[in-house]
């Protein structure tokens, strides 16, 4: 009961903060709403009893990535004029219609019996032990390849940035 309540509240909060993120003009506010969006996603994950994933989510996103975002945005310190650059009415229309149409398509796929919140309480806990076993046993190769890929991406982005300087 409580779990379902938190699930619905967290999902509504996630949608609301995501909307607020893309509609803010001030980038600092947008970043803060993005952070609250990520936190509400973490709450959503923890209502599914995936506590390990939820803690990792907060640790990685709000603890590291978003702090760097905030850092950069604050260092850039955008001027008021730059913030008030406005979009044309066509672009505004496009930006509103596109996500709405995507949402309609996704929601249209759902059947009424899919929305069954009581399934939430029947979920099994994915523990830290099981997650690590999956990562370092069954999917070990994939895991290592992904980490190598990320390092390559970092090196690549540094290279691209250096050419411009």
């Amino acid at each position, binding site marked *: *009961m*409580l779990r379902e309540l938190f699930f619905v509240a967290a999902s509504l909060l996630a949608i609301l903060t995501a909307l607020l993120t893309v509609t803010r003009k001030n980038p*600092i506010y947008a970043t*803060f709403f993005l*952070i609250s969006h990520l936190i509400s996603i973490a709450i959503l994950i923890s209502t599914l009893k995936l*506590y*390990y994933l939820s*803690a*990792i989510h*907060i*640790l990685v996103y*709000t*603890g*590291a990535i*978003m*702090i*760097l975002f*905030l*850092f950069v945005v*604050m*260092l850039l310190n955008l001027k008021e004029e730059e913030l008030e650059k406005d979009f044309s009415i066509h672009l505004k229309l496009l930006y509103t219609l596109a996500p709405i149409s995507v949402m309609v398509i996704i929601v249209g796929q759902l059947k009424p019996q899919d929305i069954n919140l009581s399934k939430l309480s029947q979920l099994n806990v994915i*523990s*830290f032990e099981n997650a690590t076993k999956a990562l370092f046993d069954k999917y070990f190769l994939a895991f290592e390849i992904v980490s190598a890929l990320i390092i390559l991406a970092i090196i690549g982005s540094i290279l691209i940035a250096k050419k411009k300087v």
Partner: protein
Amino acid sequence: MKEFIEHLYNELEFLEGLPFIIPFIIGSFILAFIIINFIAVFAGVCTYIERKVAARIQARVGPYMVGPHGILQWLADALKLLFKEDTVPEKADKLLFKLAPFIVFAGSFACWVALPLAPAFSPARLNIGILYIIAFGSSVILGILMAGWASSSKWALFGAMRSAAQIVSYEVPTGLTILAMLLITGTLDMHNTIAQINLDGTISGGQSQGLPFPLNYFSTNADNFSAGMFSWYIFRYPPFTFIAFIIIYICALAETNRVPFDIPEAESELVSGYHTEYSGMRFSFFFLSEYANMFVFSAIITTLFLGGWLPPFNITGSLLAPACGIILYMLVKGKTTDPANRFIAFCTGAGIGIFLGVLSGDKNYWFADYLGIQSLRFIEGLFWFFTKSFGLVILMMWLRWTIPRYRVDQLMELCWKKLTPLAFINLFCIGILEWLYK
């Protein structure tokens, strides 16, 4: 905590008809209320002790007027902060400015929930305890950045920037060191970390025993109380675990913005960093969170290295009481000739010995039977956990008045060029030792 409320719910008859959620929510609120007040009092007492430590080091007296030996000074300070005018700078971003202290405080308050305060007791027993604390501990930076930016003052902004850079950097060696210790403990659950230490110093899974109602809540692997300090994780693989302890202690100083790493609040450069523009109650929230954070880090170190709630020695009170009595008698002997005074000194020493004996887990005292061994363990555990953690906090205060401040570049160099490689080597060595000896 949930288990405790469940016990109460099952045992108390007048709760029969209610759904479990209601007593659960009420119990959680009561506990949160207790903890939040405890943190406030704890931080207050810490400020008093810090001032006294500073005074001692600088050969002064320190606060002396309010109460005996100035012991109520912190209450007077809190009252002053409460009645101070609450100012908000005109150019500040009002919403974020007002929100920031609460986020900082909530970040450090959330960490307290997972601390293993006593055997089988913490406000919420989490399977992912240490991970949870690291995750929520890092949300303090969010509030600091918010405060720094919203103040629209260059001092505050620079302070916040430095603080964020410092905390994010120092999380790397902290994480690596915690990882090295997790190789040894093999669990993220902070209770199991301690409960799995056996009587002979080996490690296994903890268990609980069947006991009558309120006592069974405190049941744990009670016998490991006489395991002694050499069963602690700091003595597991001697040189490497010591190095790990020193690395994580330095990182704790940096992450709580304490001297010698108090660059974000350097008075001589930045007025007082990210909380320059704050006054009154809002300022005191930053203050509270700093002391709460110091305790949380000390508690993590205590759990991972210093055996958490386990007592450090295994000497029976029967030996300890006369030993303490004789020591005190010898100390007093040269200073007084009055035999009555000497006798009082001996009795006091013996009393201290008995007290220490009880705390070290001697089952032979009469009140051990009266209280039940499990609740005795609970009190002991609480005492030793707080003593160890508080000892580390006092060491932080001592360092503050001993060591000069680092420069920003020196700070970053220490983190990335010295501590991080050292932590990596340490992790490697502990991994190999664990592989060889497990």
